[in-house]
């Protein structure tokens, strides 16, 4: 008998296989040359390229790409590993810069109602702006597409971290602060040894939301700035009408996003505590 904890994964695999089967079955077979009309022959069999490829083609493609992920044959032909590395580099740089700013400011806002009231209007106006709306301004001011992409990641990651940190810090139980006070801890030690661990789960929630958003935004940003990265890769393959590669890279984006999220979930459960 199958242990019950294997049931859900097994069902997931079955569902996947049946969906892929349906997809494969619904994909029209490639016509052989004799069956093509004159027009189709003239077009060089272009309609074959334009159809949505079946899963089998994507699996073959994935195998090819993943068996040699880091080759570099010039600007329009780089391995998927290299493209992902570029995207991750931009995401992590922008994200870390955002964390360096958001965490201390979030702490300040959380601890001081005055700072909260002063900064709140700015946050409320800046937060709903789509990160991509900053792109033209960033390109104009920074004059560098690479740095502009990093800036866009920075600006979109900052808000969830900032708001969650402020919220977590402001809602630390008064009793715990009193424990620090009765033990004569200074402000810095109170912040580090009581407020930080108390607010850590909330802060990590914000950081996890931020990394998710950053990964969503990098694809769009790279489609705009071009050159390298997984977003550019998707766009480039679309221009080549290579839908197999497009679908393959979409899947890779999903898997990398999932891994990033899983990483943060790990950290989050490490700082989680039960009251």
């Amino acid at each position, binding site marked *: 008998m199958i242990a019950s904890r294997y049931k859900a994964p097994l069902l997931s695999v079955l569902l996947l296989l049946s969906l892929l089967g349906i997809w494969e079955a619904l994909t029209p077979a490639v016509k052989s040359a004799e069956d093509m009309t004159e027009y189709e022959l003239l077009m060089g069999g272009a309609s074959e390229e334009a159809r949505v490829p079946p899963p089998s083609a994507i699996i073959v493609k994935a195998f090819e790409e993943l068996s040699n992920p880091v080759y570099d044959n010039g600007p329009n032909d780089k391995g998927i590993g290299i493209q992902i590395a570029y995207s991750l580099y931009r995401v992590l740089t922008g994200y870390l810069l955002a964390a360096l700013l958001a965490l201390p400011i979030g702490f300040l806002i959380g601890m001081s109602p005055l700072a909260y009231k002063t900064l709140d209007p700015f946050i409320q106006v800046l937060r709903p702006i789509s990160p991509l709306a900053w792109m033209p301004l960033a390109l104009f001011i920074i004059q560098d597409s690479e740095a502009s992409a990093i800036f866009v990641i920075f600006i979109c990651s900052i808000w969830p971290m900032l708001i969650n940190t402020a919220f977590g810090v402001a809602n630390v139980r008064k*009793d715990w602060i009193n424990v620090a006070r*009765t033990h*004569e801890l200074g402000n810095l030690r109170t912040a580090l040894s*009581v407020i930080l*661990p108390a607010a850590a789960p909330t802060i990590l929630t914000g950081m996890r939301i931020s990394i998710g958003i950053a990964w969503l935004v990098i694809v769009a940003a790279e489609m705009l700035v071009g050159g390298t990265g997984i977003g550019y890769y998707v766009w480039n393959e679309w221009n080549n009408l290579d839908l197999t590669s497009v679908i393959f890279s979409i899947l890779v984006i999903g898997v990398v996003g999932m891994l990033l999220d899983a990483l943060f979930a790990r950290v989050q459960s490490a700082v989680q*505590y*039960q*009251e």
Partner: protein
Amino acid sequence: MTMTDNTPLLEIQNLTRRYPSPDGGEPLTVFENANFDINRGEFVCIIGHSGCGKSTILNVLAGLDTATSGVVSMEGREIGGPGLERGVVFQNYSLLPWMSALKNVMFGVKARYPDWTRKQVRDHSYKHLEMVGLGQGSEKRKPSQLSGGMRQRVSIARAFAIQPKLLLLDEPFGALDALTRGTIQDELIRVWSGSDQTVFMITHDVDEAILLADRILLMSNGPFATVAESVVIDIPRPRRRADIIHDSAYYPIRNHLVDFLTTRSRELSQAENRKNTRNQKPLTVHPGLTGSDEAHTTQPEPPADNNPPSLTMLTGTQP
């Protein structure tokens, strides 16, 4: 009680707490002109109806809150904020939930003795956990994995481990079941009698107060509450829960307390009976000493079964 020094450890003068009324009228006076002293090594309990300001007074003594007027001084110096010479045990334990029991105690010890090595801090902390019956593995558990009684033990161990001059306890056993409460009361007595600690404790349990205290301060009802009486518990130590009810002083004291809480606490706060207590120390009474008239004014024992329902809540466990 153990160490006698003629100057009190703590002096509270004309302590008053008012809240501005929300509609701009007369401010709400929670308590007014509370005057009392606490001597070195003394175990003092304070009893009064809920809302009369006991927690506020304790928080002022802890330095966590400020009064509207009045002075609190410890060894002649005015208390201006919290300090390590005063340890606090809160009703809700206030353990840091992300740390193990041992780490929670070590947190206090590290703050108190910053020069100690990690091993010294650890050993000292572990010793104090053992004193309240923890250890043998339970020190590694987080507060969420401990029962209410165990959490309160950790909290008491943390307070004792920093060896404060004054220990402040706000209804420390209020949330515990009667059996656990009894055990921890015994532990508290044992730990306290082996030290020269001065204790100020809020309780709503008359029997608990008689078991533990050298002296019980009685507060009249709010608004305009005040510390009306200081009842000396003339029952020799060591006291044991099982024997104490057979002491001839027990029921006179108990009846005096119950009488105060059921009737006099209310009467004293009625406007026509209210006295100006400015610079007035509470009346010291010895209901347990035979011959004192207090001993004769009380109803015959045992009073437990005749208690009105509201009183049962106040008195907690019956002997």
